[in-house]
């Protein structure tokens, strides 16, 4: 059942990304281009997703001790604003702003069969592995 939920949740997520057109890098860049040809659509995507997830979280999740099908909620309760968070978010924003693709759309655009999207996807996975190696090295010092 848990696996079924994971699959259904994935389907809804992918359909949402596509219908909202977050999979279109041009649309994402136009959303970020506030002083240019600003396309506010993605602000509505976020507002809509946040309203549903946020109200559901406070009404249905916070009122429970555990999820319906598992032992505990795996949710970070780390509230520390540390350097990795700030540096990571800055680097992520730089990469996102250069091309207009974040991890969900990076996966979605593989379905185009266009090799350029595969290139981006592989580079992204390599970036993750490098980050993990570096944070491990720093943690061991």
């Amino acid at each position, binding site marked *: 059942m848990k696996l079924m939920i994971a699959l*259904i949740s994935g389907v809804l*997520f*992918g359909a949402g990304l596509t219908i909202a*057109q977050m999979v279109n890098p041009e649309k994402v860049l136009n959303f970020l281009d506030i002083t240019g040809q600003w396309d506010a659509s993605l602000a509505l995507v976020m507002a809509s997703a946040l309203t*549903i997830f946020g109200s559901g979280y406070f009404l249905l999740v916070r009122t429970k001790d555990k999820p319906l099908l598992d032992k505990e909620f795996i949710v970070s309760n780390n509230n520390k604003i540390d350097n990795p968070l700030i540096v990571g978010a800055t680097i992520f924003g730089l990469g996102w702003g250069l091309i207009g693709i974040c*991890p969900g759309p990076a996966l979605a655009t593989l379905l185009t069969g266009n090799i350029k999207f595969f*290139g981006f996807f592989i580079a992204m996975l390599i970036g993750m592995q490098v980050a993990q190696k570096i944070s491990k090295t720093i943690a061991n010092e």
Partner: protein
Amino acid sequence: MTEFTPLTALFGGALIGVSALLLLIFNGRIAGISGILYSAIQPADNDRLWRWLFLLGLMLGVFFAMNPTTPLPSDIEASWPLLIIAGLLVGFGSKIGNGCTSGHAICGLGRLSPRSIVATIIFMITAALTVFITRHILGA
């Protein structure tokens, strides 16, 4: 130039919200794509199956939803070096910063997590500045 599409934006966003909510209420998991993707490819991770199914579902969802009004892009203009650099930065940054657009800007913000609020503000501003510089100063 892309058109302002409020209805599909609201509907697509709602699906993403429901997706993240389902995964949390039933399975107790956060729908953060960068985290799910990273853990799915770690050989030592023994809780990989649900992640693979989620990612498979995501691809299926894209496949079902793509049509002439909400298509996938056919090509991307960016040069190869730029694509690779951006890919490395997106992967590196999301791993170091513990999340991307989905984990921080939807799930984290929705929970009012201070870390996610800070991360979202930082990456939105950095991304908007990057677009401003590449489009309006360098004139790409």
